[in-house]
């Protein structure tokens, strides 16, 4: 699904990613761990097509080169990024935003756009799965949301948009144990053979709930170690300093 070869990313003359290689197949869950400043969020930004990076190397997504595609085209083709800091958009109703988003993606995929009622039914169903109060949907997008609410809202969007590749950028940060469990349940219930996850995190604790197939350690812009779920557990005990 995703093949990254020798990926380099430079921003403001800073070399952040320095030759990163990664292959993700459908149905797999990959976790990226690493110390602060190792390039984890940059990887998420580059994959989703954020402006401002100078890119070298090659990223293929389902055989197509990503560098040709705009941020929205990537999203329309099934790449989803759960933001570390979801943005507030004052005056925009959460419901309206989600419907605009779902319909933009559906339109691009040649599917019929959902009318208001159909969408409302769908969103209520998905929201209740995540234990999200309906009232929350008529609030302004992320405005005044708690950290946990914002992250749940990201997972709600993921479940609505049904992406093929979901990138979770430190979705666990700022979550209490209950919220963490809800987010993890959301991911686990969506996980299937067709879609893949790239989970970026500092800590093992999210991986206690979402079992990764692979754990990669990112340091200084490169993946320096890859293992199975045990690697995460080991890192939690020993810290990064032993392997970095």
């Amino acid at each position: 699904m995703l093949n990254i070869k020798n990926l380099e990313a430079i921003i403001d003359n800073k070399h952040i990613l320095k030759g990163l290689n990664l292959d993700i197949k459908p149905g797999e869950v990959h976790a990226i761990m690493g110390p602060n400043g190792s390039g984890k969020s940059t990887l998420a930004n580059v994959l989703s097509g954020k402006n401002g990076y100078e890119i070298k190397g090659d990223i293929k997504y389902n055989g197509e080169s990503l560098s040709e595609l705009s941020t929205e085209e990537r999203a329309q083709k099934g790449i989803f990024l759960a933001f570390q800091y979801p943005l507030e958009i004052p005056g925009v109703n959460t419901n309206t935003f989600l419907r605009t988003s779902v319909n933009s993606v559906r339109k691009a995929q040649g599917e019929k756009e959902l009318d208001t009622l159909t969408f409302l039914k769908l969103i209520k169903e998905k929201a209740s799965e995540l234990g999200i109060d309906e009232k929350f949907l008529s609030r302004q997008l992320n405005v005044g949301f708690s950290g946990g609410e914002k992250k749940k809202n990201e997972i709600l969007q993921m479940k609505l948009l049904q992406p093929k590749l979901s990138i979770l950028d430190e979705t666990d940060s700022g979550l209490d144990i209950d919220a963490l469990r809800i987010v993890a349940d959301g991911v686990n219930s969506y996980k299937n053979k067709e879609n893949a996850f790239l989970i970026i995190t500092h800590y093992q604790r999210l991986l206690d709930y979402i079992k990764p197939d692979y754990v990669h350690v990112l340091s200084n812009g490169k993946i320096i170690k890859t293992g199975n779920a045990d690697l995460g557990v080991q890192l939690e005990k020993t810290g990064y300093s032993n392997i970095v």
Partner: protein
Amino acid sequence: MKTEDLKNIKDYKYGFTTDVENIRSPKGLSEETIRFISNIKKEPEWMLEWRLKAFNRLKVLKEPDWQKPKYPKINYQDLYYYSAPKSASENPKSLDEIDPKILETYKKLGIPLVEQKRLNGIAVDAVFDSVSVATTFKDELTKKGIIFCSISEAIQKHPELVKKYLGSVIPLSDHYFATLNSAVFTDGSFVYIPPNTKCPMELSTYFRINASETGQFERTLIIADKGSYVSYLEGCTAPMRDENQLHAANVELIALDDAEIKYSTVQNWYPGDEKGVGGIYNFVTKRGACRGKNSKISWTQVETGSAITWKYPSCILQGDNSVGEFYSIAITNNFQKADTGTKMIHLGKNTKSKIISKGISAGNADNMYRGLVEIKNKAINSRNYTQCDSLLMGNKCGAHTIPYIKNNNATSTIEHEATTTKINEEQLYYCNQRGLDQEEAVSLIVNGFCKEVLQQLPMEFAVEAQKLVAISLEGSVG
């Protein structure tokens, strides 16, 4: 560049012209022109005298020049002050007699005038250049005692009301453009709501400039008698031309005891092209008097068009406990300029005013909020709340806020909040990541920014206004 070439350039979809035979006044500003206008409208003598008085006053007035957007000197002798389709100049008209070309024009503008296709629950007065060509739902309104007609008709049929109220809010000698309007005004709407009557439908006027080298001098007068309510909306469009055309309107509102007037504007005059050539000079005087106790006047404006917008819809809060509101969205793109805001003059006790202004500036445009809040010494326990937000798109545009605040008594309070923000790249990225393209993302964010004002519009127009907001900013981010 010729008008024909301009038509093809950009998607100002109202930029077409209608080919009709016109009757025009003599060129230039003179007593002869004023007599011509008064005569063709078959006005009574007192009206002509009133116009001539204004004209005499005009001779000593100077064109103001304190505004931020500057413009080349207007040659007032090179303009036509009256231009009307020949077919429409012999009033009154029934709908069957209206030139099909004019009906077609309004149909294209989305304002069907013919019986079976009328907008539901909205009565329309259609003003084409200098004349009102049709007013719909007149009979239904008459049954309730509501008068909704062109000002020309009101001058003939309801002289007692016109004499009593015309010029009572904007005096003859007010300022240059207002006085010019008093001398040469051509058409506009007249509304009278009798006591204790809630107008059962939205009243609206659609102003269309069609003829070239012509100024439009609209005059509108709305009177809400004791305990009545009316919601009124005006829309405006004009053809694309490389000349600048002047629209100098006067709008007067009067609310008596316990009456409420809600006045909404969706202004989409031709804004000029991307290089700033052509477009309307929208120099308008709008003023409402809350004359009675507990009366309320609420202005809502969505200003997206015009090369220059220069207007301050105002409220004079005379009656005790009266309320004035001003909700504004001013969007300027390319080389458009706006200097707009409001004046809230508190005279009565316990008067309240609220100002919510949203200015959006893109391209090379310049957007100014200028507003006066004045609480006089007898207006005890009065309050004002003002919020001015500016949104900048790109780095070549400007936004300015100039509040004038005068509080003359210690029992009253004035609050002013202002913010200036740039459209946030991170917000755009977030929207893009959710599959929205750049235009959709901008439209969503900007409509969110304007929401408090858009909510004030009558439902039927809110959706249109949202689309207009998006269209006005097309191509401004990219």
